[in-house]
């Protein structure tokens, strides 16, 4: 069966033209406690929250061009909350002096039948993983400290194996395009986390090679 032709075009325009500003870094497991401590001090005064999410990455291969990639995520700790479907565009080349990685981003809340729907559309699951960790908030900034685990048996989120001895730290902001003050704020926040963690602008497309 042949996949239906799709336009491999980023979704732009309208009210959903949001950009994700992203900085990434990682800490070793031993340094986690001190990082969390620091984040609790720096971030908004909220109850620290943990999460356990299951992410499935779906691919839709067209005849030509890059495959179209969607990320579907659900919360294992809050089973009733809706699924989250996310499209992430290619990082913007643009301004080299910008401190954060900027990419197009479309967020959609979805019902629990999302995997079936995607399958019907012709998407195929590429890989899946479980991520557990802590989430913090500082104004519009979101800090996620998470550990990624591989799923050993497809579909079984109980049986996992952690990928590494470190935690992934992501600092992200969702903002309309062209708001470069956001990246300034992110940089100053990242400065405050040094030397516990060095948050940097990491281009995932270059990482692969």
């Amino acid at each position, binding site marked *: 069966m042949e996949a239906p032709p799709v336009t491999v075009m980023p979704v732009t325009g309208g009210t959903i033209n949001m950009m994700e500003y992203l900085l990434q870094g990682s800490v070793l497991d031993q340094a986690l406690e001190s990082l969390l401590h620091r984040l609790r001090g720096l971030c908004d*005064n*909220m109850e620290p*929250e943990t*999460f356990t*999410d*299951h*992410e499935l990455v779906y691919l839709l291969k067209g005849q030509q061009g890059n495959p179209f990639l969607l*990320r579907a*995520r*659900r*919360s294992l*700790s*809050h089973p009733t*909350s*809706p*699924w*989250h479907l*996310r499209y992430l565009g290619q990082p913007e080349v643009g301004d080299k002096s910008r401190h954060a990685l900027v990419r197009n981003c479309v*967020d*959609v*809340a*979805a*019902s*629990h039948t999302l995997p079936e729907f995607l399958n019907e559309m012709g998407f195929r699951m590429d890989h899946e993983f479980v*991520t557990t*960790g802590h*989430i913090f*908030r500082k104004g*519009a900034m*979101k800090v*996620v400290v*998470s550990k990624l685990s591989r799923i050993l048996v497809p579909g079984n989120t109980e049986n996992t194996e952690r990928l590494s001895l470190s935690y992934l730290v992501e600092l992200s902001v*969702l903002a309309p395009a062209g708001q470069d003050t956001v990246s300034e704020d992110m940089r100053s926040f990242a400065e405050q986390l040094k030397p516990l963690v060095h948050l940097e602008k990491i281009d995932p497309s270059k990482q692969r090679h």
Partner: protein
Amino acid sequence: MSGGPAVRVSIESSCEKQVQEVALDGTETYVPPLSMSQNLAKLAQRIDFSQGSDSEEEGAEGEPRDREWGKQEGEEEEGTVKFQPSLWPWDSVRNNLRSALTEMCVLYDVLSVVKEKKYMALDPVSQDPTAGKTPQVFQLISKKKSLATAAQLLLKGAEKLNKSVTENQENRRQRDFNSELLRLRSQWKLRKVGDKILGDLSYRSAGSLFPHHGTFEVIKNTDIDLDKKIPEDYCPLDVQIPSDLEGSAYIKVSIQKQSPDIGDLGTVNLFRRPLKNKAGTQQWHLKLEAAQNVLLCKEIFAQLSREAVQIKSQIPHIVVKNQIISQPFPGLQLSISLCHSTGEKKNQRTSPEKPSPDNHLYVLEHNLHQMMREFHKQQLSSVVMPHPASAPFGHKRLRLAGPLAYDKAEISSLQQSEGLLEKIIKQAKHIFLRSRTARTIDSLASRIEDPQIQAHWSNINDVYESSVKVLITSQGYEQICKSIQLQLNIGVEQIRVVHRDGRVITLSHQEQELQDFLLSQMSQHQVHAVQQLAKVMGWHVLSFSNHVGLGPVESIGNASAVTVASPNGEYSISVRNGPESGCKVLVQFPRSQNKELPKSDVIQDTKWSHLRGPYKEVNWSRMEGRNFVYKMELLMAALTPCP
């Protein structure tokens, strides 16, 4: 010296050669005999010079002793020359020259010794009293000088001590400042910006969205004049608050009415007193708390004014300067104002205000503060972390609405949030309605003595609802006449009346409605009471009607009527009671007792005498008895034949 005695010298030669040494083998080595000059030298060595010098010293007194050894040389020479005295005619000249030479030699030696400075140094010795004034002046100067040095030393020491004391104090103050800062830090948010310490007194961390930055600055107050007395309330730490937050502020809520139909709504008269300095609290703390209160009041007022402008209502809310005016009920004005007074002005302003009636609605003012805090809390708790973690921040309902296919009603039900102003107006309406109800009941109770009205107010109320139980009774007959028990639920706009039998009547906020209703209930009560009394007295109820369709029309409600017959059936009493027309009591007599009735030919038989005769009205106001039921009891008793 020249005339001094000559030294006697005897010369003799040794007889034999002197043995110099005896060798081990016994051979003697002889010293060779001395030559003439050798002999002389040897003899000269044997001269006792000290003797000679002693005699000489008498002539040359005052000469320093240290030239003695120099003289020795000269003496030796003298000894050799004196060998042949007076041989020479130039003897005296020679002697003089010799002595001059000696002197010169000595002088030379002395000078050379002095010059060397290796062995001795010359110091001026001024023990001579003849030295005169110069040394004394010098002494004075030197004394003065040494005194000055000593004084300087002392001064230096004193200065050092002084400095250390000051430093100590400074240190202590510094330490005080630090400890104060620590205390401040434990209660307020502080951060360091440059060389300043800034604090945050806003409610932002508690969920406030008020844009005022609410920053205060911590000032070190350590450089005070040491000479002056330190004031008792001195604190090394001071805070500087923004000028617009100075002074004190409060929100004043009051209800003005065009018609004086309700009394004072304020329950307690709380004058705003200047804050008392409680023991153990720092000045800065009071200052900051006052500023924070001002900030909160400003926030409340800003929120209310924003809502007042946004909310569409039939009678628009008016926002004028620091006052919001709203009309909850016709003829009633709710005004919410922000009173902000700064420092000294306040004392002058409050004093003339005191005598004027204070119509604050303290409950509402308190509630406003409480609602603002609830709003803050809601703000905080509405921001929930997204799950899954990759989802964007935002309200949960927005994320739920799509996947769960919410319709408009569901979304709006999630969204509905009543504004502060709406809430406070509702509360004000309720308070107003409640107090007016109470006033209506009270005025009726005091105006009408028969029947009596009792109102039992519940102590615990909701902000929007309270209830009162109204009992209508007759004095002395409480046990038998308790037909009317009303439960009044006072809401925001209307009053719901729940009857004892379960009927529910809804009254509007109009005062007249409640009054009319109560009046009609009271008139019904009287008829009910007659009915109850008849049962007790053994009379028979012939008819009873709450709403009589006959007779004059009442302006309020309907008249009610009851007819009771005496136990033996001879008499009957009819009572008609209307809320407006009052009561009318008629008694029907047996036909037999009525002499005025013309004898009819048709009803001749005695059995017809039991037919009732005509009615006669009782002059009720002239009846004995303190109230209606008592009068009725007396009437019934009078009409009941004795057994």
